[in-house]
Protein backbone atom coordinates (compact mmCIF):
# COMPACT_ATOMS: atom_id res chain seq x y z
CA UNK A 1 0.00 0.00 0.00
CA UNK A 2 1.26 3.43 -0.87
CA UNK A 3 2.23 5.85 1.87
CA UNK A 4 0.74 9.26 2.31
CA UNK A 5 3.48 11.78 1.63
CA UNK A 6 3.97 15.45 2.38
CA UNK A 7 6.52 16.57 -0.21
CA UNK A 8 8.87 19.32 0.87
CA UNK A 9 7.77 21.39 -2.10
CA UNK A 10 4.15 20.99 -0.91
CA UNK A 11 4.81 22.42 2.56
CA UNK A 12 4.15 25.91 1.21
CA UNK A 13 0.88 24.69 -0.27
CA UNK A 14 -0.10 23.25 3.12
CA UNK A 15 0.74 26.51 4.92
CA UNK A 16 -1.23 28.49 2.33
CA UNK A 17 -4.18 26.13 2.62
CA UNK A 18 -4.24 26.46 6.41
CA UNK A 19 -3.96 30.24 6.25
CA UNK A 20 -6.60 30.45 3.50
CA UNK A 21 -9.04 28.52 5.67
CA UNK A 22 -8.54 30.86 8.62
CA UNK A 23 -5.99 28.86 10.55
CA UNK A 24 -2.56 29.84 11.76
CA UNK A 25 0.46 27.75 10.98
CA UNK A 26 3.14 27.56 13.64
CA UNK A 27 6.51 26.06 12.84
CA UNK A 28 10.13 26.22 13.94
CA UNK A 29 11.52 29.44 12.48
CA UNK A 30 14.28 31.89 13.26
CA UNK A 31 13.62 34.65 15.75
CA UNK A 32 16.46 36.55 17.39
CA UNK A 33 18.73 34.07 15.64
CA UNK A 34 17.22 31.14 17.46
CA UNK A 35 14.83 28.43 16.37
CA UNK A 36 11.46 29.02 17.99
CA UNK A 37 7.87 28.07 17.34
CA UNK A 38 6.20 31.05 15.68
CA UNK A 39 3.58 31.75 13.01
CA UNK A 40 4.84 31.35 9.47
CA UNK A 41 3.22 32.09 6.12
CA UNK A 42 5.84 30.69 3.75
CA UNK A 43 7.69 27.39 3.59
CA UNK A 44 11.01 29.24 3.32
CA UNK A 45 10.60 30.44 6.88
CA UNK A 46 10.39 26.92 8.26
CA UNK A 47 13.61 25.58 9.74
CA UNK A 48 14.02 21.83 9.33
CA UNK A 49 17.49 21.42 10.83
CA UNK A 50 16.96 21.76 14.57
CA UNK A 51 16.85 19.60 17.68
CA UNK A 52 13.94 21.20 19.53
CA UNK A 53 12.58 24.73 19.32
CA UNK A 54 13.85 26.93 22.13
CA UNK A 55 10.33 27.62 23.42
CA UNK A 56 7.68 25.06 24.18
CA UNK A 57 4.54 25.24 22.12
CA UNK A 58 2.51 25.25 25.33
CA UNK A 59 2.15 29.01 24.75
CA UNK A 60 -0.34 28.18 22.01
CA UNK A 61 -2.71 26.60 24.53
CA UNK A 62 -1.57 28.43 27.65
CA UNK A 63 -0.43 31.89 26.51
CA UNK A 64 2.16 33.77 28.50
CA UNK A 65 -0.51 36.35 29.21
CA UNK A 66 -4.25 36.04 28.68
CA UNK A 67 -7.09 38.42 29.49
CA UNK A 68 -9.88 36.62 31.35
CA UNK A 69 -12.09 39.65 32.10
CA UNK A 70 -12.43 43.38 31.45
CA UNK A 71 -13.72 45.90 33.95
CA UNK A 72 -14.49 49.58 34.19
CA UNK A 73 -14.90 51.38 37.48
CA UNK A 74 -17.30 54.31 37.42
CA UNK A 75 -19.42 56.39 39.74
CA UNK A 76 -22.17 53.82 39.65
CA UNK A 77 -20.06 50.81 40.39
CA UNK A 78 -18.12 48.26 38.43
CA UNK A 79 -18.89 46.87 35.00
CA UNK A 80 -17.35 43.47 34.58
CA UNK A 81 -17.28 41.30 31.48
CA UNK A 82 -15.70 37.89 31.19
CA UNK A 83 -13.70 37.22 28.07
CA UNK A 84 -14.60 34.42 25.77
CA UNK A 85 -11.99 32.56 23.82
CA UNK A 86 -12.78 31.54 20.25
CA UNK A 87 -9.42 30.31 19.06
CA UNK A 88 -8.67 29.92 15.37
CA UNK A 89 -7.52 26.55 14.17
CA UNK A 90 -3.84 26.38 15.04
CA UNK A 91 -1.38 23.97 13.53
CA UNK A 92 1.92 23.34 15.19
CA UNK A 93 4.26 21.75 12.71
CA UNK A 94 7.56 20.28 13.77
CA UNK A 95 6.77 19.45 17.36
CA UNK A 96 8.94 16.68 18.72
CA UNK A 97 7.41 13.45 20.05
CA UNK A 98 8.62 14.16 23.58
CA UNK A 99 6.86 17.49 23.96
CA UNK A 100 3.67 16.25 22.29
CA UNK A 101 3.14 14.12 25.39
CA UNK A 102 2.95 17.22 27.58
CA UNK A 103 -0.49 18.33 26.42
CA UNK A 104 -2.20 15.55 28.35
CA UNK A 105 -0.29 16.65 31.46
CA UNK A 106 -1.43 20.26 31.09
CA UNK A 107 -4.95 19.13 30.34
CA UNK A 108 -5.05 17.10 33.55
CA UNK A 109 -4.34 20.26 35.55
CA UNK A 110 -6.59 22.60 33.62
CA UNK A 111 -9.55 20.23 33.82
CA UNK A 112 -9.12 19.10 37.43
CA UNK A 113 -12.78 19.47 38.50
CA UNK A 114 -12.94 23.08 37.36
CA UNK A 115 -12.62 23.35 33.58
CA UNK A 116 -10.38 26.17 32.39
CA UNK A 117 -11.99 26.77 29.00
CA UNK A 118 -9.26 29.18 27.99
CA UNK A 119 -7.02 26.14 27.94
CA UNK A 120 -9.43 23.46 26.69
CA UNK A 121 -10.83 25.50 23.80
CA UNK A 122 -7.34 26.37 22.63
CA UNK A 123 -6.21 22.77 22.88
CA UNK A 124 -9.29 21.55 21.07
CA UNK A 125 -8.41 23.91 18.19
CA UNK A 126 -4.78 22.76 18.07
CA UNK A 127 -3.48 20.19 15.60
CA UNK A 128 -0.10 18.79 16.57
CA UNK A 129 2.05 17.66 13.66
CA UNK A 130 5.09 15.93 15.04
CA UNK A 131 8.30 15.38 13.14
CA UNK A 132 10.15 12.39 14.57
CA UNK A 133 13.76 13.07 15.50
CA UNK A 134 16.57 11.96 13.23
CA UNK A 135 19.14 13.50 15.50
CA UNK A 136 19.54 14.64 19.06
CA UNK A 137 22.01 16.60 21.10
CA UNK A 138 23.74 15.52 24.29
CA UNK A 139 20.99 17.07 26.37
CA UNK A 140 18.03 15.09 24.98
CA UNK A 141 16.90 12.45 27.49
CA UNK A 142 13.46 11.30 26.33
CA UNK A 143 14.38 7.62 26.65
CA UNK A 144 15.40 8.19 30.26
CA UNK A 145 11.81 9.22 31.07
CA UNK A 146 10.44 6.26 29.09
CA UNK A 147 9.58 8.13 25.91
CA UNK A 148 11.29 8.06 22.52
CA UNK A 149 11.15 9.53 19.00
CA UNK A 150 8.72 6.68 18.28
CA UNK A 151 6.22 7.92 20.89
CA UNK A 152 3.01 9.05 19.23
CA UNK A 153 1.00 10.08 22.29
CA UNK A 154 -0.21 13.64 21.89
CA UNK A 155 0.53 13.83 18.18
CA UNK A 156 -2.40 14.25 15.81
CA UNK A 157 -0.18 13.61 12.83
CA UNK A 158 3.18 11.91 13.04
CA UNK A 159 5.74 12.61 10.33
CA UNK A 160 8.94 10.81 9.47
CA UNK A 161 11.49 12.56 7.31
CA UNK A 162 12.70 10.83 4.14
CA UNK A 163 16.17 10.96 2.63
CA UNK A 164 14.94 13.50 0.10
CA UNK A 165 13.46 15.83 2.73
CA UNK A 166 9.84 14.81 2.23
CA UNK A 167 7.69 13.44 5.03
CA UNK A 168 5.86 10.14 5.43
CA UNK A 169 2.53 11.01 7.01
CA UNK A 170 0.72 9.01 9.66
CA UNK A 171 -2.61 10.26 11.00
CA UNK A 172 -2.74 9.35 14.69
CA UNK A 173 -6.03 10.86 15.81
CA UNK A 174 -9.40 11.73 14.26
CA UNK A 175 -8.38 15.35 14.48
CA UNK A 176 -5.30 14.50 12.42
CA UNK A 177 -7.36 12.58 9.85
CA UNK A 178 -9.81 15.46 9.53
CA UNK A 179 -6.93 17.88 9.04
CA UNK A 180 -5.48 15.79 6.21
CA UNK A 181 -8.87 15.60 4.55
CA UNK A 182 -9.39 19.33 4.87
CA UNK A 183 -6.05 20.09 3.25
CA UNK A 184 -5.92 17.06 0.96
CA UNK A 185 -4.37 18.94 -1.96
CA UNK A 186 -1.11 19.33 -0.05
CA UNK A 187 -0.69 15.60 0.43
CA UNK A 188 0.14 12.98 -2.15
CA UNK A 189 0.62 9.25 -2.34
CA UNK A 190 3.85 7.49 -2.98
CA UNK A 191 6.42 5.33 -1.45
CA UNK A 192 9.52 6.56 0.24
CA UNK A 193 12.11 5.39 2.65
CA UNK A 194 12.22 7.06 6.03
CA UNK A 195 15.48 8.26 7.47
CA UNK A 196 16.52 6.31 10.52
CA UNK A 197 15.29 7.81 13.77
CA UNK A 198 17.87 8.77 16.32
CA UNK A 199 17.12 7.20 19.67
CA UNK A 200 19.13 8.91 22.41
CA UNK A 201 20.88 6.63 24.82
CA UNK A 202 19.12 6.18 28.12
CA UNK A 203 21.01 7.55 31.11
CA UNK A 204 21.59 4.13 32.62
CA UNK A 205 22.01 5.23 36.21
CA UNK A 206 18.56 6.86 36.31
CA UNK A 207 15.61 4.81 37.47
CA UNK A 208 12.20 6.54 37.56
CA UNK A 209 10.82 3.92 39.94
CA UNK A 210 13.59 4.57 42.43
CA UNK A 211 13.12 8.33 42.13
CA UNK A 212 9.40 7.91 42.72
CA UNK A 213 9.91 5.69 45.77
CA UNK A 214 12.46 8.03 47.27
CA UNK A 215 10.28 11.11 46.78
CA UNK A 216 7.30 9.33 48.29
CA UNK A 217 9.31 8.56 51.39
CA UNK A 218 8.83 11.75 53.39
CA UNK A 219 11.96 11.15 55.43
CA UNK A 220 14.00 12.23 52.38
CA UNK A 221 12.18 15.52 52.06
CA UNK A 222 14.62 17.39 54.27
CA UNK A 223 17.73 15.66 52.95
CA UNK A 224 20.79 17.91 52.77
CA UNK A 225 21.19 16.69 49.24
CA UNK A 226 18.59 19.17 47.98
CA UNK A 227 20.65 22.11 49.15
CA UNK A 228 23.88 20.63 47.92
CA UNK A 229 22.67 19.87 44.40
CA UNK A 230 20.60 22.97 43.81
CA UNK A 231 22.45 25.68 45.73
CA UNK A 232 23.68 27.34 42.54
CA UNK A 233 20.13 27.98 41.30
CA UNK A 234 19.54 31.74 41.04
CA UNK A 235 15.77 31.43 40.84
CA UNK A 236 15.43 33.02 37.39
CA UNK A 237 12.58 30.67 36.49
CA UNK A 238 13.79 30.22 32.90
CA UNK A 239 13.43 26.44 33.23
CA UNK A 240 9.75 26.80 34.03
CA UNK A 241 8.99 29.06 31.08
CA UNK A 242 10.52 26.75 28.49
CA UNK A 243 9.18 23.60 30.16
CA UNK A 244 6.30 22.00 28.24
CA UNK A 245 4.55 20.84 31.44
CA UNK A 246 5.06 23.78 33.82
CA UNK A 247 1.66 25.34 34.30
CA UNK A 248 1.92 27.84 37.16
CA UNK A 249 0.35 31.24 36.72
CA UNK A 250 -0.56 34.42 38.52
CA UNK A 251 -3.80 36.38 38.24
CA UNK A 252 -3.28 40.13 38.15
CA UNK A 253 -5.16 43.29 37.25
CA UNK A 254 -3.63 45.71 34.80
CA UNK A 255 -4.88 49.07 33.61
CA UNK A 256 -5.72 52.49 34.92
CA UNK A 257 -7.68 53.45 38.03
CA UNK A 258 -10.89 53.41 36.00
CA UNK A 259 -10.56 50.54 33.57
CA UNK A 260 -8.48 47.46 33.19
CA UNK A 261 -8.11 43.81 32.50
CA UNK A 262 -7.76 40.79 34.68
CA UNK A 263 -5.03 38.58 33.31
CA UNK A 264 -3.65 35.12 33.77
CA UNK A 265 0.13 35.48 33.49
CA UNK A 266 2.82 32.84 33.56
CA UNK A 267 4.44 32.58 36.95
CA UNK A 268 7.11 30.30 38.35
CA UNK A 269 7.47 28.29 41.54
CA UNK A 270 11.13 29.35 41.41
CA UNK A 271 10.35 32.96 42.33
CA UNK A 272 10.78 34.01 45.96
CA UNK A 273 7.42 35.80 46.14
CA UNK A 274 5.52 32.90 44.60
CA UNK A 275 4.37 31.47 47.93
CA UNK A 276 5.07 34.49 50.14
CA UNK A 277 2.26 35.09 52.64
CA UNK A 278 0.98 38.57 53.49
CA UNK A 279 2.28 38.00 57.02
CA UNK A 280 5.84 37.72 55.73
CA UNK A 281 5.97 33.97 56.27
CA UNK A 282 7.15 32.04 53.24
CA UNK A 283 6.70 28.26 53.17
CA UNK A 284 9.48 28.08 50.56
CA UNK A 285 11.86 30.69 51.84
CA UNK A 286 15.04 29.11 50.45
CA UNK A 287 15.79 28.56 46.79
CA UNK A 288 16.49 24.85 47.36
CA UNK A 289 12.93 24.48 48.69
CA UNK A 290 11.59 26.03 45.51
CA UNK A 291 13.80 23.80 43.38
CA UNK A 292 12.67 20.79 45.37
CA UNK A 293 9.07 21.77 44.70
CA UNK A 294 9.65 21.78 40.95
CA UNK A 295 11.37 18.39 41.05
CA UNK A 296 8.64 16.94 43.28
CA UNK A 297 6.02 18.32 40.89
CA UNK A 298 7.71 16.62 37.93
CA UNK A 299 8.43 13.24 39.50
CA UNK A 300 5.82 12.88 42.21
CA UNK A 301 2.78 15.18 41.90
CA UNK A 302 2.24 14.88 38.13
CA UNK A 303 2.66 11.10 37.95
CA UNK A 304 0.97 10.23 41.26
CA UNK A 305 -1.81 12.78 41.34
CA UNK A 306 -2.57 13.36 37.68
CA UNK A 307 -1.37 10.07 36.17
CA UNK A 308 0.70 11.99 33.67
CA UNK A 309 4.28 12.87 32.84
CA UNK A 310 5.83 15.81 34.62
CA UNK A 311 9.02 15.57 32.61
CA UNK A 312 9.20 14.58 28.94
CA UNK A 313 12.97 14.68 28.63
CA UNK A 314 13.12 17.48 26.04
CA UNK A 315 16.13 18.99 27.79
CA UNK A 316 15.02 22.61 27.41
CA UNK A 317 15.56 23.42 31.08
CA UNK A 318 19.16 22.24 30.85
CA UNK A 319 19.90 24.15 27.65
CA UNK A 320 18.48 27.40 29.00
CA UNK A 321 19.86 27.29 32.56
CA UNK A 322 22.33 30.15 33.16
CA UNK A 323 24.12 28.25 35.94
CA UNK A 324 24.20 24.82 34.26
CA UNK A 325 21.93 23.11 36.75
CA UNK A 326 21.19 19.78 35.11
CA UNK A 327 17.97 18.09 36.22
CA UNK A 328 19.35 14.69 35.18
CA UNK A 329 22.11 15.02 37.79
CA UNK A 330 19.43 15.35 40.45
CA UNK A 331 17.56 12.42 38.90
CA UNK A 332 20.75 10.37 39.14
CA UNK A 333 21.21 11.29 42.79
CA UNK A 334 17.65 10.25 43.57
CA UNK A 335 18.07 6.99 41.67
CA UNK A 336 20.68 5.80 44.15
Amino acid at each position, binding site marked *: MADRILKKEDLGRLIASVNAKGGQFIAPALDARQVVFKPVTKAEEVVTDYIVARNSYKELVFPQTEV*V*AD*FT*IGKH*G*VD*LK*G*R*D*VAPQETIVFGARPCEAVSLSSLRA*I*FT*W*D*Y*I*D*EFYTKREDALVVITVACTKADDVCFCTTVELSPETKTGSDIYLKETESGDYIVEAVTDKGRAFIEKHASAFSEGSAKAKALFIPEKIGTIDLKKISARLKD*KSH*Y*DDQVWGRLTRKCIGCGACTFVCPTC*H*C*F*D*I*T*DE*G*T*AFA*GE*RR*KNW*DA*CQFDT*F*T*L*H*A*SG*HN*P*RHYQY*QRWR*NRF*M*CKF*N*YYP*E*KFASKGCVGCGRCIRVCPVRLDITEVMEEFSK
Partner: protein
Amino acid sequence: MSNNIYLPHLVTIEDIYEEAPDVRSFRLVFKDKALRESFDFKTGQFGLYSAFGLGESTFCIASAPTRKGYIQCTFRRSGRVTGGLSELSIGDTMGFRGPYGNFFPVDEWKGKNLVFIAGGIGLPPVRSVIWNCLDRREEFGDITVVYGARTVADLVYKNELQHWEDRNDVRLIQAVDPGGQTEDWKGKVGFVPTVLEEAAPKAENTVAVTCGPPIMIKFVLKALEKLGFSDDNVYTTLENKMKCGVGKCGRCNVGDIYVCKEGPVYTAAEVKRMYNDF
Protein backbone atom coordinates in the same frame (compact mmCIF):
# COMPACT_ATOMS: atom_id res chain seq x y z
CA MET B 1 -18.13 32.07 27.41
CA SER B 2 -20.28 29.41 28.86
CA ASN B 3 -18.08 28.95 31.85
CA ASN B 4 -15.29 31.32 32.82
CA ILE B 5 -13.93 29.96 36.08
CA TYR B 6 -11.92 33.13 36.73
CA LEU B 7 -14.87 35.53 36.47
CA PRO B 8 -15.93 36.86 39.88
CA HIS B 9 -19.44 37.75 41.00
CA LEU B 10 -20.06 41.38 41.80
CA VAL B 11 -20.90 42.09 45.43
CA THR B 12 -21.88 45.28 47.25
CA ILE B 13 -20.35 46.26 50.55
CA GLU B 14 -23.40 46.56 52.77
CA ASP B 15 -21.58 47.31 56.00
CA ILE B 16 -18.05 47.78 57.31
CA TYR B 17 -16.87 46.96 60.83
CA GLU B 18 -13.59 48.19 62.26
CA GLU B 19 -12.36 45.16 64.18
CA ALA B 20 -8.85 46.11 65.26
CA PRO B 21 -6.04 48.34 64.00
CA ASP B 22 -5.85 47.68 60.23
CA VAL B 23 -8.38 44.85 60.51
CA ARG B 24 -11.88 45.27 59.17
CA SER B 25 -14.85 43.18 58.15
CA PHE B 26 -17.14 43.65 55.17
CA ARG B 27 -20.69 42.45 55.02
CA LEU B 28 -21.23 41.60 51.36
CA VAL B 29 -24.34 40.95 49.31
CA PHE B 30 -24.46 39.66 45.76
CA LYS B 31 -25.68 42.18 43.18
CA ASP B 32 -27.46 39.36 41.40
CA LYS B 33 -30.71 38.83 43.30
CA ALA B 34 -31.11 35.21 42.26
CA LEU B 35 -27.62 34.42 43.44
CA ARG B 36 -28.25 36.22 46.71
CA GLU B 37 -31.07 33.76 47.35
CA SER B 38 -29.38 30.63 46.06
CA PHE B 39 -25.81 31.14 47.30
CA ASP B 40 -24.81 28.50 49.77
CA PHE B 41 -21.55 27.37 51.32
CA LYS B 42 -20.23 25.25 54.13
CA THR B 43 -18.33 26.45 57.13
CA GLY B 44 -14.60 26.47 56.48
CA GLN B 45 -14.78 27.26 52.78
CA PHE B 46 -13.00 30.25 51.32
CA GLY B 47 -13.30 32.71 48.48
CA LEU B 48 -11.26 35.08 46.36
CA TYR B 49 -12.10 38.72 46.91
CA SER B 50 -11.35 41.33 44.23
CA ALA B 51 -10.42 44.95 44.51
CA PHE B 52 -10.82 45.73 40.81
CA GLY B 53 -7.66 47.23 39.40
CA LEU B 54 -5.51 45.70 42.12
CA GLY B 55 -6.28 42.00 42.02
CA GLU B 56 -7.62 39.21 44.19
CA SER B 57 -6.88 37.94 47.67
CA THR B 58 -7.94 34.77 49.43
CA PHE B 59 -9.85 34.89 52.73
CA CYS B 60 -12.16 32.47 54.43
CA ILE B 61 -15.86 33.16 54.56
CA ALA B 62 -16.06 34.45 58.11
CA SER B 63 -19.83 34.34 58.43
CA ALA B 64 -21.82 31.20 59.12
CA PRO B 65 -23.86 29.36 56.50
CA THR B 66 -26.74 29.44 58.96
CA ARG B 67 -26.95 33.21 58.32
CA LYS B 68 -28.41 33.56 54.85
CA GLY B 69 -28.47 36.44 52.41
CA TYR B 70 -24.94 37.78 52.92
CA ILE B 71 -21.35 36.77 53.48
CA GLN B 72 -18.74 38.40 55.63
CA CYS B 73 -14.99 38.60 55.23
CA THR B 74 -12.41 39.89 57.67
CA PHE B 75 -8.94 40.92 56.60
CA ARG B 76 -5.86 42.75 57.75
CA ARG B 77 -4.53 45.54 55.57
CA SER B 78 -1.16 44.18 54.56
CA GLY B 79 -0.58 44.34 50.83
CA ARG B 80 -1.78 45.80 47.57
CA VAL B 81 -5.18 44.11 47.38
CA THR B 82 -6.06 44.39 51.07
CA GLY B 83 -4.85 48.00 50.91
CA GLY B 84 -7.23 48.64 48.02
CA LEU B 85 -10.09 46.88 49.79
CA SER B 86 -9.44 49.06 52.84
CA GLU B 87 -10.08 52.15 50.72
CA LEU B 88 -13.58 50.99 49.79
CA SER B 89 -16.70 52.38 51.46
CA ILE B 90 -20.21 51.16 52.17
CA GLY B 91 -22.08 50.84 48.85
CA ASP B 92 -18.94 50.17 46.81
CA THR B 93 -18.57 47.17 44.54
CA MET B 94 -16.01 44.44 44.78
CA GLY B 95 -15.68 40.91 43.42
CA PHE B 96 -16.10 37.47 44.95
CA ARG B 97 -15.37 34.01 43.60
CA GLY B 98 -16.22 30.90 45.54
CA PRO B 99 -17.03 29.09 47.68
CA TYR B 100 -13.99 26.86 47.26
CA GLY B 101 -12.38 24.07 49.21
CA ASN B 102 -13.57 21.59 51.78
CA PHE B 103 -15.24 22.35 55.10
CA PHE B 104 -15.48 21.46 58.77
CA PRO B 105 -17.61 18.31 59.14
CA VAL B 106 -19.95 19.98 61.64
CA ASP B 107 -22.70 17.43 61.07
CA GLU B 108 -20.40 14.67 62.32
CA TRP B 109 -19.91 16.52 65.60
CA LYS B 110 -23.50 16.22 66.83
CA GLY B 111 -23.59 15.35 70.50
CA LYS B 112 -19.95 16.25 71.06
CA ASN B 113 -18.30 18.98 73.11
CA LEU B 114 -16.50 21.60 71.08
CA VAL B 115 -13.34 23.56 71.87
CA PHE B 116 -12.37 26.45 69.62
CA ILE B 117 -8.86 27.86 69.90
CA ALA B 118 -7.85 30.91 67.88
CA GLY B 119 -5.11 33.50 67.82
CA GLY B 120 -5.25 37.02 66.37
CA ILE B 121 -6.57 37.17 62.84
CA GLY B 122 -7.05 33.39 62.98
CA LEU B 123 -10.44 33.87 64.59
CA PRO B 124 -12.44 34.63 61.38
CA PRO B 125 -12.49 31.05 60.01
CA VAL B 126 -13.18 29.68 63.49
CA ARG B 127 -15.89 32.28 64.02
CA SER B 128 -17.78 30.82 61.03
CA VAL B 129 -17.80 27.45 62.79
CA ILE B 130 -18.66 28.95 66.16
CA TRP B 131 -21.74 30.76 64.85
CA ASN B 132 -22.73 27.74 62.80
CA CYS B 133 -22.69 25.66 65.99
CA LEU B 134 -24.27 28.34 68.19
CA ASP B 135 -27.12 28.65 65.68
CA ARG B 136 -27.65 24.90 66.15
CA ARG B 137 -26.78 25.04 69.84
CA GLU B 138 -28.96 22.13 70.98
CA GLU B 139 -27.07 19.68 68.73
CA PHE B 140 -23.78 20.04 70.63
CA GLY B 141 -22.47 19.58 74.18
CA ASP B 142 -20.25 22.07 76.00
CA ILE B 143 -18.77 24.83 73.87
CA THR B 144 -15.47 26.42 74.91
CA VAL B 145 -13.73 29.26 73.09
CA VAL B 146 -10.10 30.15 73.81
CA TYR B 147 -9.09 33.29 71.98
CA GLY B 148 -5.95 35.35 72.31
CA ALA B 149 -4.26 38.24 70.55
CA ARG B 150 -1.07 40.18 70.98
CA THR B 151 -2.81 43.13 72.66
CA VAL B 152 -6.32 44.00 73.77
CA ALA B 153 -6.68 46.25 70.74
CA ASP B 154 -5.82 43.36 68.42
CA LEU B 155 -8.74 41.19 69.54
CA VAL B 156 -11.21 41.03 66.65
CA TYR B 157 -15.03 40.79 66.85
CA LYS B 158 -15.06 42.60 70.21
CA ASN B 159 -18.85 42.90 70.26
CA GLU B 160 -19.26 39.22 69.63
CA LEU B 161 -16.71 38.31 72.27
CA GLN B 162 -18.84 40.30 74.70
CA HIS B 163 -21.93 38.45 73.48
CA TRP B 164 -20.28 35.05 73.96
CA GLU B 165 -19.04 36.20 77.37
CA ASP B 166 -22.62 37.04 78.32
CA ARG B 167 -24.09 33.76 77.15
CA ASN B 168 -24.26 31.03 79.73
CA ASP B 169 -23.98 28.25 77.16
CA VAL B 170 -20.50 29.26 76.02
CA ARG B 171 -17.31 29.23 78.06
CA LEU B 172 -15.11 32.01 76.68
CA ILE B 173 -11.50 32.44 77.77
CA GLN B 174 -9.81 35.53 76.38
CA ALA B 175 -6.11 36.19 76.61
CA VAL B 176 -3.51 38.67 75.48
CA ASP B 177 0.22 38.16 75.20
CA PRO B 178 2.26 39.41 78.18
CA GLY B 179 2.60 43.17 77.83
CA GLY B 180 -0.50 43.42 75.68
CA GLN B 181 -2.93 43.93 78.58
CA THR B 182 -4.59 47.21 79.56
CA GLU B 183 -5.28 48.33 83.13
CA ASP B 184 -8.89 47.21 83.05
CA TRP B 185 -8.17 43.92 81.25
CA LYS B 186 -10.13 41.14 82.93
CA GLY B 187 -9.00 38.27 80.75
CA LYS B 188 -5.88 36.14 80.96
CA VAL B 189 -2.37 37.29 80.24
CA GLY B 190 -0.35 34.62 78.47
CA PHE B 191 0.13 32.80 75.21
CA VAL B 192 -2.76 30.85 73.76
CA PRO B 193 -1.23 27.35 74.11
CA THR B 194 -0.47 27.96 77.80
CA VAL B 195 -3.89 29.45 78.45
CA LEU B 196 -5.43 26.46 76.74
CA GLU B 197 -3.52 24.04 78.94
CA GLU B 198 -4.62 25.90 82.05
CA ALA B 199 -8.23 25.89 80.89
CA ALA B 200 -7.82 22.13 80.44
CA PRO B 201 -10.95 21.28 78.45
CA LYS B 202 -11.88 17.60 78.69
CA ALA B 203 -10.73 15.59 75.69
CA GLU B 204 -13.38 12.94 76.05
CA ASN B 205 -16.09 13.16 73.38
CA THR B 206 -14.66 16.53 72.34
CA VAL B 207 -13.63 18.02 69.02
CA ALA B 208 -11.09 20.86 68.88
CA VAL B 209 -10.82 23.45 66.11
CA THR B 210 -7.85 25.78 65.90
CA CYS B 211 -6.54 28.54 63.67
CA GLY B 212 -3.92 31.20 64.15
CA PRO B 213 -0.30 31.99 63.33
CA PRO B 214 1.68 28.84 62.33
CA ILE B 215 3.78 28.97 65.50
CA MET B 216 0.66 29.14 67.66
CA ILE B 217 -0.96 26.22 65.85
CA LYS B 218 2.20 24.17 66.36
CA PHE B 219 2.12 24.63 70.14
CA VAL B 220 -1.68 24.37 70.39
CA LEU B 221 -1.45 20.94 68.74
CA LYS B 222 1.13 19.93 71.34
CA ALA B 223 -1.03 21.25 74.18
CA LEU B 224 -4.06 19.37 72.86
CA GLU B 225 -2.02 16.20 72.67
CA LYS B 226 -1.03 16.70 76.31
CA LEU B 227 -4.67 17.18 77.22
CA GLY B 228 -5.41 13.82 75.66
CA PHE B 229 -6.98 14.85 72.37
CA SER B 230 -6.46 12.38 69.55
CA ASP B 231 -5.19 13.83 66.25
CA ASP B 232 -8.38 12.74 64.50
CA ASN B 233 -10.48 14.98 66.72
CA VAL B 234 -8.40 18.10 66.17
CA TYR B 235 -9.13 20.27 63.12
CA THR B 236 -7.30 23.21 61.67
CA THR B 237 -7.51 25.26 58.51
CA LEU B 238 -4.37 25.95 56.50
CA GLU B 239 -3.95 29.33 54.94
CA ASN B 240 -1.59 29.41 51.99
CA LYS B 241 -1.15 31.96 49.27
CA MET B 242 -3.56 31.23 46.45
CA LYS B 243 -4.30 32.84 43.13
CA CYS B 244 -6.79 30.63 41.32
CA GLY B 245 -8.47 28.79 44.19
CA VAL B 246 -9.30 25.90 41.86
CA GLY B 247 -6.18 23.75 41.68
CA LYS B 248 -4.43 25.21 38.66
CA CYS B 249 -2.07 28.06 39.54
CA GLY B 250 0.29 25.79 41.45
CA ARG B 251 1.27 27.65 44.61
CA CYS B 252 -0.85 26.56 47.57
CA ASN B 253 0.44 22.99 47.65
CA VAL B 254 1.95 21.60 50.82
CA GLY B 255 3.94 18.85 49.21
CA ASP B 256 1.48 16.86 47.13
CA ILE B 257 -1.57 18.33 48.87
CA TYR B 258 -3.31 21.21 47.11
CA VAL B 259 -4.79 23.28 49.92
CA CYS B 260 -7.38 24.94 47.65
CA LYS B 261 -8.80 21.65 46.41
CA GLU B 262 -8.06 19.15 49.18
CA GLY B 263 -8.23 21.66 52.03
CA PRO B 264 -8.14 24.13 53.61
CA VAL B 265 -9.60 22.08 56.50
CA TYR B 266 -7.53 19.19 57.82
CA THR B 267 -7.33 17.09 60.95
CA ALA B 268 -4.11 17.24 62.94
CA ALA B 269 -3.52 13.65 61.86
CA GLU B 270 -3.63 14.71 58.20
CA VAL B 271 -1.34 17.67 58.84
CA LYS B 272 1.21 15.39 60.49
CA ARG B 273 1.24 13.13 57.43
CA MET B 274 2.10 16.02 55.07
CA TYR B 275 5.48 16.87 53.60
CA ASN B 276 7.34 19.47 55.67
CA ASP B 277 6.48 22.25 53.21
CA PHE B 278 4.84 24.82 55.49
